């Protein structure tokens, strides 16, 4: 018994000493930064040898740092393009970590009812084609709600952000006009409206400006008790964003998930799927020369897709559906 304990202690000590050298640096997206910090912190408590220093400097900057090799791995709210992947010396693997969603929020004088939006109506508003709240398209989505004959003040993000990417990616899918005129990116040439800096800038402007509409991250809306509208999904149902409906969107998309996980799940199939949802990814090199580091990163990823997922809901991030976790486990084995 004593010997066994000793051996166990020895193994533990060995494990710790092997891992002791692992200082991992990572950089990228700001949107999942709170849950990443929580994960790295919790993981460090359990494996004192592994320390991850994550800098939330934005998806674009994260990809740049990964390309130039100044970080061990990156993180991004939008999947890397083929051109970006070809620039990195080592092939980069995408690992979905959590899910986010973007919700429409509005402030209309005299309207307290929760509004419903179809994708076409949202695209029309953001294109500047739908100018008044009592437009037939909006009246059709919201029977029984008395919408005023007032001009719509459109508010969008002014800073480049994954939130804008998800929003414009969705509008591109539901509106051919949007796709050809504007497109999807972290910043676009907005046809209409005012720009607010950050979620707080958009939320503040919408709150203050009568008859305005904007979009914010679901987490931000939940944490600040903001009212937001439901959106018509591909199956034709009006769905309100919540952790469950966002995970449902991921599950709906999981069936057609490509091997490299680079997939947009906006307008995903499924009756309960919320259509403006997205994965956010960790970008991990497929070959890590330092064996100890590779082992530590693999172990962390395995923990993240299993135990780590249990911590996401408390921070208002939607956890990955089971189907995705199973596929990711296979991909973890590909890291060398």
């Amino acid at each position, binding site marked *: 018994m004593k010997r066994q304990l000793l051996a166990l202690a020895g193994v533990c000590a060995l494990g710790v000493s092997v891992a002791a050298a692992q200082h991992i640096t990572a950089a990228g997206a*700001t949107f999942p930064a709170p849950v990443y910090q929580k994960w790295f912190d919790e993981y460090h408590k359990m494996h004192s040898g592994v320390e991850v220093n994550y800098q939330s*400097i*934005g*998806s*674009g*900057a994260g*990809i*740049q740092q990964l390309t130039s090799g100044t970080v061990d791995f990156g993180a991004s709210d939008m999947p890397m393009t083929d051109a*970006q992947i070809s620039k990195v010396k080592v092939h980069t693997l995408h690992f979905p970590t959590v899910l986010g969603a973007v919700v429409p929020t509005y402030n209309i004088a005299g309207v307290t009812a929760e509004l419903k939006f179809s994708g076409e109506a949202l695209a029309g508003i953001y294109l500047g084609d739908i100018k008044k709240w009592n437009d037939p398209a909006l009246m059709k989505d919201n029977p029984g709600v008395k919408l005023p004959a007032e*001009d719509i*003040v459109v508010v969008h993000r*002014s*800073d*480049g*952000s*994954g939130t804008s990417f998800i929003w414009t990616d969705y509008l591109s899918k539901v509106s051919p006009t949007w796709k050809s005129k*504007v*497109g*999807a*990116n*972290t*910043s*676009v*040439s*907005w046809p209409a*409206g*005012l*720009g*607010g*800096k950050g979620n707080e*800038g958009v939320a*503040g*402007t919408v709150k*203050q*400006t009568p008859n305005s509409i904007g979009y914010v991250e679901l987490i931000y809306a939940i944490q600040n008790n903001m009212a937001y509208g439901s959106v018509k999904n591909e199956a034709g149902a009006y769905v309100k964003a919540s952790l469950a409906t966002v995970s449902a969107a991921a599950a709906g998309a999981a069936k057609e998930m490509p091997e490299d996980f680079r997939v947009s799940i906006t307008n995903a199939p499924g009756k309960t799927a919320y259509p403006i949802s997205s994965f956010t990814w960790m970008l991990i090199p497929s070959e890590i020369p330092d064996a100890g580091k590779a082992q530590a990163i693999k172990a962390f990823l395995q923990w993240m897709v299993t135990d780590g997922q249990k911590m996401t809901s408390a921070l208002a991030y939607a956890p990955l559906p089971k189907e995705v976790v199973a596929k990711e486990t296979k991909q973890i084995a590909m890291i060398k």
Partner: protein
Amino acid sequence: MATQTAVLERTAVRKTAQTGDTVARLVALTFASVVLLIVAVLVFELWVGSAAARHKLGWSFLFSSDWDPVTEKFGAAPFMYGTVVTSVLALLISVPLGVGAAVFLSELAPASISNALTFLIELLAAIPSVIYGMLALFTLVPLMRNYGEPFLKKSFGFLPLFRGPAFGVGFLTAGMILAVMSFPFIISVSREALLAVPRDQREASLALGATRWETTSQVVVPYARLGILGSIFLGLARALGETMAVTMVIGNDPSIHASLFAPGYTIAAVIANEFTEATGSVYPAALVELGLVLFCITIVINALARILILATTSKGSKRP
């Protein structure tokens, strides 16, 4: 013998004094060249960093008003316009107020009040700009939307400057918050300049029978005009480079509008907003090139300031 040692001692003293001078000169020279070096590195980095955008877009970058990261079409015109308009608006508001306040503090107010107020004004200069931005977003914007802009529209609506929907955010509000922010610099530096005017000047003027107002406006202020101009350019520099407060209230729309109520964008604001998420090669380079443009605007304005100072100085010296 005694005189000889004295001479020797004196030369020794002179020698140490001379080495001291040389050391001091070298140290000062080093510090001065560090400044030059920083400017040179800055220009070099901006030039190299913007290469991709300069090659792809050429001179059209300066005149185009497209800003479309999706199709990689970039133009600096709306940002240059926004930067200049908001800074000019800021100066239009803050110069009369700032110089007026400085005259009051240095010429009219009792010393105790003057010192207390100056302390408070210098505190204003130390407030971080994000605080000014919040203040503007939550206080100034609603005031402008509900009272300020409707009033201007009603009274001066015949001018194209005051037309269009009143959002509250836009050029005018951004100019106002910039005015508030450049205000402390103008007051505090102008006040120092006015206080540095010799007593003799004032007394001579009063002795010649000038009233207090005539003395202030025709003797003291002209005497201190270099310092006052310096304070104005300090304020302008703050207005040109300000980022956070402006982006929170300007509306962030890269387009050129005649109306001051319309939303706009400034160079510093767009760099801060879009740089973190800019991917590809041309997009980040275009943002760096905007930085280069801002640098050039600053140089041009500073050069104009020098010329203005030189012109007014020679005019002043010819005065009888």
